[in-house]
C-alpha cells in the first residue's frame, strides 16, 4: 500500500526521481511541450533549486513532484510512488503524507483562520493533531494571529502560515514555487530562513523553484531549465552568510 511505500522510502536513495519525464499541454489545436525528457533526482534532506526563466518548466516539474499532475512520458517517482502509474487514491495519499506545498501566491483558504489553514492537511487526512498545529504556529511566530483570517494578515504572515501548513503533516518533500515572489526582499529572506530551518529540523527535502539567483545560490544543487529541457545541473556555492539553506 501507499503508506508502506512512503514509509519504506527511508531505504531508498532518492526521495524524488524524474527519468526522462515529459509533459505536454494542449493549447487550442497546438501542443505545447512544458517539460521534455527531464531527468533529475532529489536526495533526502537535500535542497535543490530549480532555476530558469518564466515558462521554462519549473512549475510543471513541481506539479509532477507534488502529484497534482502526471507525466505524459517518462517516469516520476516520489516517495516510492510512480506518479504516472499511480491510482488516484495513491496520489491522494502521496499528497497527504509525503509532500508539502508552498505557493508564490500563498493559496490559503480565505474563509479559514490561520489555525484552521495550518490544520487543514491533517483534517483532510482525518488525523487532527492540535498540539502539532499550535507548535508550528508558534514556530512561525503567528500565535497571536492564529484566529485571524488570511485577509487580515500581511503577505509575510500569509506565507509563514503557508510554510506551517506545508510542514504540519511532516512531509518528506516540500516543493516551493517562488515562495518569495510576492514578498519584499527582507520578508522573503525571513520566510525562506524559516522554511529552511523547519524543513531541516524534520529532515525534509526541499525543491525550490526560483528566479532569484541569490536564493538559488543557497541551495545544495541548482538545476537549470530552459524551454522545458534540463540545461544544467551543478552544486551551488554556499551563501557567504552560512545560511542553513
Amino acid at each position, binding site marked *: 500500500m501507499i503508506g508502506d511505500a512512503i514509509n519504506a522510502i527511508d531505504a531508498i536513495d532518492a526521495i524524488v526521481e524524474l527519468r526522462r519525464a515529459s509533459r505536454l499541454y494542449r493549447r487550442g489545436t497546438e501542443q505545447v511541450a512544458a517539460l521534455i525528457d527531464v531527468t533529475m533526482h532529489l536526495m533526502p534532506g537535500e535542497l535543490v533549486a530549480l532555476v530558469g526563466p518564466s515558462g521554462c518548466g519549473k512549475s510543471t516539474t513541481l506539479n509532477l513532484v*507534488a502529484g*497534482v499532475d502526471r507525466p505524459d512520458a517518462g517516469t516520476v517517482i516520489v516517495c516510492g510512488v510512480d506518479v504516472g502509474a499511480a491510482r*488516484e*487514491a495513491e496520489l*491522494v*495519499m502521496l*499528497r*497527504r503524507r509525503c509532500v508539502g*506545498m508552498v505557493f508564490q501566491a500563498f*493559496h*490559503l*483558504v*480565505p*474563509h*479559514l*483562520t490561520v*489555525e*484552521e489553514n*495550518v*490544520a*487543514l*492537511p*491533517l*483534517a*483532510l*487526512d*482525518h*488525523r*487532527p493533531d*492540535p498540539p502539532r*498545529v499550535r507548535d508550528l504556529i508558534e514556530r512561525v511566530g503567528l500565535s497571536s494571529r492564529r*484566529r*485571524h*483570517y488570511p485577509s*487580515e494578515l500581511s503577505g509575510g504572515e500569509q506565507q509563514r502560515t503557508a510554510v506551517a*501548513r506545508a510542514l504540519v*503533516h511532516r512531509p518528506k518533500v516540500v516543493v516551493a514555487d517562488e515562495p518569495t515572489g510576492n514578498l519584499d526582499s527582507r520578508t522573503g529572506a525571513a520566510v525562506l530562513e524559516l522554511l529552511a530551518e523547519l524543513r531541516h529540523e524534520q529532515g525534509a527535502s526541499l525543491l525550490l523553484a526560483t528566479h532569484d539567483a541569490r536564493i538559488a545560490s543557497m541551495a545544495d544543487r541548482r538545476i537549470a531549465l530552459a524551454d522545458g529541457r534540463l540545461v544544467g545541473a551543478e552544486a551551488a556555492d554556499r551563501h557567504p552568510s552560512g545560511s542553513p539553506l
Partner: protein
Amino acid sequence: MIGTIAPGSADLLRALLVRPLRRRPWRFMITVLGVATGVAAVIATVASSRAAVGAFTRGVDEVAGAARLEITQPGGIPVATLADLRPITDQAIVVPVVEDSVLLVELGDGVRLLGVDLLLDAQVRPVLEATLAPEALHEALIGRGVLISAELAAELGLRAGDTITLSAQGRLEQVKVVALIDAGRHGAVWERVVLADVALAQELVGRPDRIDRIELVPRPGVEPAALGQRARGLLAGRLDVSKPSHRRVLAEQMVASLRFNLVALSAISVLVGGVLVATTLATSVVQRRYTVSVLRSLGASRLQVALAVIVEATALGLLGGALGVVAGFGGARLALASVRSTVAVVLQGGEGFDQTLVSVADDLGLTLMVTDVRHFCH
C-alpha cells in the same frame, strides 16, 4: 476577527462549507435568489397557463348550463322565434339567452353580461337556484335589477341595493344590484358575470328584438334527438338546431389553440429559467474553483470534494427551489388576477403540483449539472 472552531477534522471540513455563507451571506442569498427566480419563472408560467386553460374549459360548461340542444343563427335570433317553439314547451324548457361583453365602470374592466329568463333559468343553471329569492326575482323582473357574484361585490365594496354602471354600445346604463350570487364551487366562473333578465339584457346591449341563442332542456323522459327533430320541424330549417357539443367543439378548438400558445410560452419560460439557474450556479461554482484547487493540492480526495460540492449545490437547489415555488405560485396568482375579466380563473391547490416537482427536480438537476462535480474532482 471572529471566534473560530477547534481544528478537528469534521468541524474543519464543515467550516469549509458553512463559513463562506456566514461571512458573506449576501453572496449566498443572491445565488439563492437567482435559482429561485429561475424556478419561479417556470412555475408561474406553467401554473397560470394550466389554470387559465382549465378555467376556460370549465367556464364553457358552467355558463352554458345544462342545455341538451341549442338554437343559433349568425347575427342572432328574432324574438318571435320563441313563439314558434311554444308547441314544444311541454317537452322542453325553452330558455332565451343574450350574452355580450360590457364594461363595468366601477371595476374599470370588462364583464360578461348574461341575460336569461330568470323565471325559467333556475331550472337550468344550478347556481341560480340558491340565489333567486322571491324578492330579488321580483325586483329583477320589474325593475332594472341585476345579480352579481358575492366575490365581485366584495371586491367593489357593493351590497344588494347599490347601483352600478355598465357601458354597452357606447352608452352608460345604471342598474341596481338586487341580489348577490353565492356561486359556491362555481365562484370563479361567475365572478365576472353580470346576470340580468333577458329583456333588460336586450335593452342594455341595444338588441331589443333579437336574442343570441335559445337553449332547449328536455323535460324528463324526452329524448333529445326527437326533441331536436321536432324543433327543426317547427323552425322549418330556418335556424340551426344542434347539440351544445358543437359549441363545445369550437370552444375546445379555442382551448387547444390557447393551450398551444401557453405551452410554447411555458417552454420558453423553462428555457429562460434554466439558463438563469445555470448562470447563477456557474458563477457560484467559479467562485469556489480556487478553494477546491487548493484543497486538492493539500490532499483532499475526489470523494471529499464531491461531497462538499454536492452538499452546497443541494442546499442551494433546495433553498432556491423552495423560494421559487412560493414566488412562482405568487406570480401565477398575480398573473391570473390580471386576466380575470377575460377568463374566470382560479388557481387550485393542486394546480401545477406535478410541475412544481418537475421544476424543483430540474432545479436540483441543473444545480448539480452546472456544478460539474466530476470537473472539480479532477
